[in-house]
């Protein structure tokens, strides 16, 4: 092994990384997204997807949903560091596999091809609530809602049916049942 002459210690043992969905309620003010995203990039956390929009116009609250991967220690730090930001009201954390939580992503798919191809494509999407948003003689724009991996699969399957363009959102999340996260 080549000698490294570092002023710092070598990395220690690392825990197993897991995918989490972090939901952050923030004041909808200038720069707030930069603060949240800057915290992730500055501390070396990663963002797989991001969804943000105002959810309470009266109080000016936005809801940011971030999908991230990290060891339990990193996930804990993400939550605590987010909680310290002044415009942050609360932070929730869900495991990707958590059965009590609904996760959804939306995708818009543009397919170009003959009627037979387009119908086959529609069939592939059947499980994911396809909605035809636009239709011409040569093309169709579909909207589907599903999990990330499901959309990945659909995209692969649709290649042979004339998929030419994809636009996807980040994941959004909500708890099942009557409970809300406080």
């Amino acid at each position, binding site marked *: 092994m080549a*000698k490294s002459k*570092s*002023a710092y*210690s070598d990395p220690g043992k690392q825990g197993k990384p897991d995918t989490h969905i972090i939901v952050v309620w923030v004041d909808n003010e200038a720069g707030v997204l930069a603060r949240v995203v800057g915290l992730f990039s*500055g501390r070396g956390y990663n963002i797989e997807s991001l969804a943000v929009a105002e959810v309470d116009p009266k109080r000016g609250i936005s809801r940011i949903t971030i999908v991230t991967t990290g060891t339990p220690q990193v996930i*804990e730090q993400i939550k605590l560091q987010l*909680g310290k930001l002044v415009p942050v009201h609360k932070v929730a954390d869900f495991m990707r596999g958590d059965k009590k939580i609904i996760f959804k992503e939306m995708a818009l798919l543009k397919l170009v091809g003959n009627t037979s191809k387009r119908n086959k494509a529609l069939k592939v999407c059947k499980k994911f609530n396809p909605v035809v948003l636009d239709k011409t003689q040569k093309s169709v724009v579909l909207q589907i809602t599903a999990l990330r991996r499901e959309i990945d699969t659909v995209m692969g399957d649709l290649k042979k049916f004339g998929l030419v363009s994809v636009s996807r959102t980040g994941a959004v999340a909500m708890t099942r049942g009557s409970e809300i996260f406080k």
Partner: protein
Amino acid sequence: MSKLYTGAEIVFKCMEDQKVEFIFGYPGGAVLPIYDELKNHDSIKHILARHEQGAGHSAEGYARSCGKPGVVLVTSGPGATNVVTALTDAYMDSIPLVCISGQVPTHLIGTDAFQECDTTGITRPCTKHNWLVKDVKDLAKIIHKAFEVATTGRPGPVLVDIPKDIQFQKAKYSNFKKQKKLNGKSNNRFSQKDIDKLVEMMGKAKQPIFYTGGGVINSGPKASEQLRELISITGFPITSTLQGLGSFPGDDNQFLGMLGMHGTYEANNAMHDCDLMINIGARFDDRITGKIDEFSPKSKKVHIDIDPSSINKNVKVDLPIVGDVSEVISLLIKTVKKHKPNFLKSNKENISKWWEQIGKWRSVNSLNFINSDKTIKPQFAIQRLYELTKNKDTFITTEVGQHQMWAAQHYKFDKPNRWMTSGGLGTMGYGLPAAVGVQIAHPDKLVVDIAGEASVLMTMQEMSTAVQYNLPIKIFILNNEYMGMVRQWQELLHEKNYSESYTAALPDFVKLAEAYGCVGIRAKTPDELDSKIQEMIDVKKPVIFDCLVDKEENCFPMIPSGKPHNQMLLGPNDQKENKITGKGKTLV
């Protein structure tokens, strides 16, 4: 209809309501309306720095020595970028600073105007929070909020960016009422149960140790008094981080000295072998822990900290207690007294073997060095400085490097807020401007910057500030002509290839002092040292003291980082049998 005030007036109204006495700053185009307003506010004095970084460090020195937030005023563009180092320094060491920066007028923001920069963007990662004021009606609210954020919870720097047109526009100002809670975020999240658990752990421990840090100082002078009581009623040993020095008397028998990379043999070994570690207001920094995987392997760890994100960040702990140090200690003392009124006596037997072991480590005398009667050893210089100043209430600041570690090892503090050093960021050039701020806060006290010749040149221009305001700060330079710590690492790790660590063409510091209009003193030999130091203390003017020390002295003991606490490198007496070889070398 109530009176309307300009933005610039509102800035001062807010500062008056916040009881600000001093502003450290430097004028420029985008803050001129605020500077114009200065003449109308007698209770606020402006200290003109010579560089915005100097203004920032001075405000830090002021804040650390008197517990009030430091206020900095700078212009847009280069004014703001120059203060970034000081803001980052304050962020790392949890110092409350409120920085007000000018900005180009609102309609020019985003046009690459003259002296425009994205100040809130640049300072976002080095402040607790920052604001760009877009409406003069929000100005008062934002400034008061800024003071609140800077001083509550874990303190830190904040920045308010005010465009020039906002400084001219008018709005109402209603007097400020202090609120208690910040955004519903209370600092104390511990319960009696946690304290009971801790007392139980303390009763069972056979090898306990308190490990205290800057959080004790930040919690206020009362916390340091309470800490002393806690240590005396438990009989446990205590060690402190660099930032925590002064919260417990340095010459007390229960004090094991500083721990960490250049900490004492007894402190580091006690940390490694303890079975109960009680961390009060410290953050398991990498200079403290060494190799994390082998850090204090046998101990239960308790962590008392006001910042929940400090818990489990670097080291997993068994009992986290989130709260203000002073309040936690006071409940802890109460609980010990209630449940175990004779704890000290009844527990003495329990930890007597531990103290015996600590005595053995102590007898190694790890801060020892080989003195000389020909050249001044830097450690000796600090010991003499300590002996000659310990009867005064002396305030010490430092730069960064070997001299800083020697100061921490050999100068014994017995009060909090007397020791100002850049620990987290390690900013060379911190000490001189910090001394300016300390002397502003304590005009009649002795303030000494223990410096290295390389560091002090980075902010030397602030001597001019000291002279302008008659601040009799003493710059005590341990001059070895090298960037000493860099040279030490190059000696130990890079086959003595002293790449760029020698400073040729150093200025004559005595003449430099005279050029600034202060006093220059030089000491060359050990026997003239005392009289020269006394001369420095007696002069009622700023002094640059050029202490010519051994050029090749190294700072020991030392934990090569990447090694655990129990594998320390001791001084020259011990070196033959304990050389850094092979893998250890890669890890310093």
